[in-house]
């Protein structure tokens, strides 16, 4: 039957409902600040939002959006190729290109459509894509549409990438290497110096998704490649406006002049409505703030280290290193759900991640840190996790 394949998911949803838990699609009933809200009837600290710099609730971004919605209206009602290119979109593209020091930028309606659309378009039949095994779902969706040969390399493993490029022989000129700056589930940073070295030795083009690293890494916030000093080795930078920039949308920038031809070949760009001008206006203001206020990144990393060190000191199985994304990994689904619920009841909202969204067969309590978190809020998050241990819901031996 058509619906048989959904039975497992329906059963899982029924189990969650029976336990009065709604970890997926939990409703935020009110936003109090960038780091506080009412979720499922409870006032909570928001520790699962990717709002790394807290700009979703910055008054300057709100004012920019308000002014734009008055000037431009609520939507564009069309794609960029038809009636949906407003001056705001072109201005943001110029500003994104200038931010990265390149000549070409494309703005998309979502981050998902940016990475999916670029990956589906850059490589085609006869080309080869080499992607990190832990790549985001949007990348997997894009490469599947591309028609190219798709080869995975082991996660964050430049030696494995080198081996696979070597196997391509003379065909590396048609190879697209895909990596991410910060990986979204464990928050681990790609070894970009080594990946760039491999690319220099064997050839190929490098596409880097800076979704979680733009705004959070690098001297001026350009991301992991800037932090690693290898921006010249990156052919295409992609990212999102829905994390550090606090809005919604995506981008790809490049030094390659072919970008202007590529733009008109991306179905995810051509056949979807462009972003509302108010969204673009708040994004432009957020981009200005990212450049003007490096102290936001410093505060973010102070908070990240404080949370990571605190969770590690509790003996919890934290992800490999301090990062804006910090995950607690557990083997047991039921225990992880109980922990998620207990955290919410203790006033902390985090993300529950289950396979296949998690990179292994394990379950994650995924925390994302914000520059807008106060020290007291970070300590309250740590205290909520300590409460899990006190309640016997998690022990280091129970963890993965």
């Amino acid at each position, binding site marked *: 039957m058509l619906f048989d394949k959904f039975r497992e998911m329906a059963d899982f949803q029924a189990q969650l409902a029976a336990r009065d838990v709604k970890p997926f699609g939990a409703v935020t009933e009110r936003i109090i600040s960038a780091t506080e809200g009412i979720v499922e009837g409870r006032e909570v600290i928001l520790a699962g939002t990717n709002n790394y710099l807290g700009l979703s609730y910055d008054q300057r971004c709100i004012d920019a959006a308000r002014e734009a919605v008055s000037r431009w209206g609520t939507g564009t009602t069309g794609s960029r190729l038809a009636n949906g290119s407003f001056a705001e979109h072109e201005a943001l593209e110029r500003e994104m290109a200038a931010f990265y020091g390149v000549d070409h930028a494309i703005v998309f309606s979502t981050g998902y459509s940016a990475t999916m659309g670029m990956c589906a378009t850059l490589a085609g039949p006869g080309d*080869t894509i080499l992607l990190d*095994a832990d790549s985001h779902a949007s990348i997997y969706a894009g490469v599947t549409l591309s028609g190219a*040969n*798709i*080869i*995975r390399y*082991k996660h964050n493993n430049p030696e494995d990438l080198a*081996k*696979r490029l070597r*196997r*391509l022989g003379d065909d590396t000129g048609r190879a697209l290497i895909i990596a991410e700056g910060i990986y979204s589930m464990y928050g681990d940073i790609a070894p970009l110096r080594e990946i760039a070295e491999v690319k220099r030795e064997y050839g190929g083009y490098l596409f880097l998704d800076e979704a979680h690293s733009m705004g959070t890494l690098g001297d001026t916030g350009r991301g992991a490649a800037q932090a690693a000093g290898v921006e010249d080795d990156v052919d295409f930078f992609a990212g999102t406006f829905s994390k550090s920039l606090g809005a919604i949308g995506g981008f790809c920038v490049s030094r390659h002049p072919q970008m202007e031809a590529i733009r008109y070949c991306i179905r995810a760009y051509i056949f979807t409505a462009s972003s509302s001008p108010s969204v673009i206006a708040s994004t432009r203001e957020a981009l200005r703030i990212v450049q003007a206020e490096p102290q936001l990144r410093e505060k973010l990393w102070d908070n990240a280290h404080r949370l990571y060190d605190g969770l590690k000191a509790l003996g919890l199985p934290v992800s490999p290193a301090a990062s804006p994304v910090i995950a607690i990994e557990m083997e047991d689904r039921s225990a992880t759900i109980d922990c998620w619920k207990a955290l919410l009841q203790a006033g902390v909202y985090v993300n529950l991640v289950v*396979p*296949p969204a998690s990179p*292994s*067969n394990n379950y994650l309590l995924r925390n994302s840190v914000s520059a807008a978190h106060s020290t007291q809020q970070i300590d309250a998050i740590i205290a909520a996790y300590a409460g899990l241990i006190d309640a016997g819901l998690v022990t280091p031996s129970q963890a993965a």
Partner: protein
Amino acid sequence: MTEYQDTLEFLYSALQSQNKKNVPLEEDTALVADIGLSSLEVMEFIEKIEDHFDISIPLNILPDVNTIGDLAKKVQELNP
């Protein structure tokens, strides 16, 4: 023993650690339906094969692979 049978023998040995149900491993044994490999376990199995034969197996071919024999034939094509 032919090269194809050599490949099959390697696949049988590489699968042993993932064969939790102790299903008899034969050419027509299905990786998912019979052995019960998860998508992640399939990828771990593929990595073992790639390292052993020094080949890269494109993800594109996996929809056509159901059995150990299907995979052995693909390995043969990629490792002439």
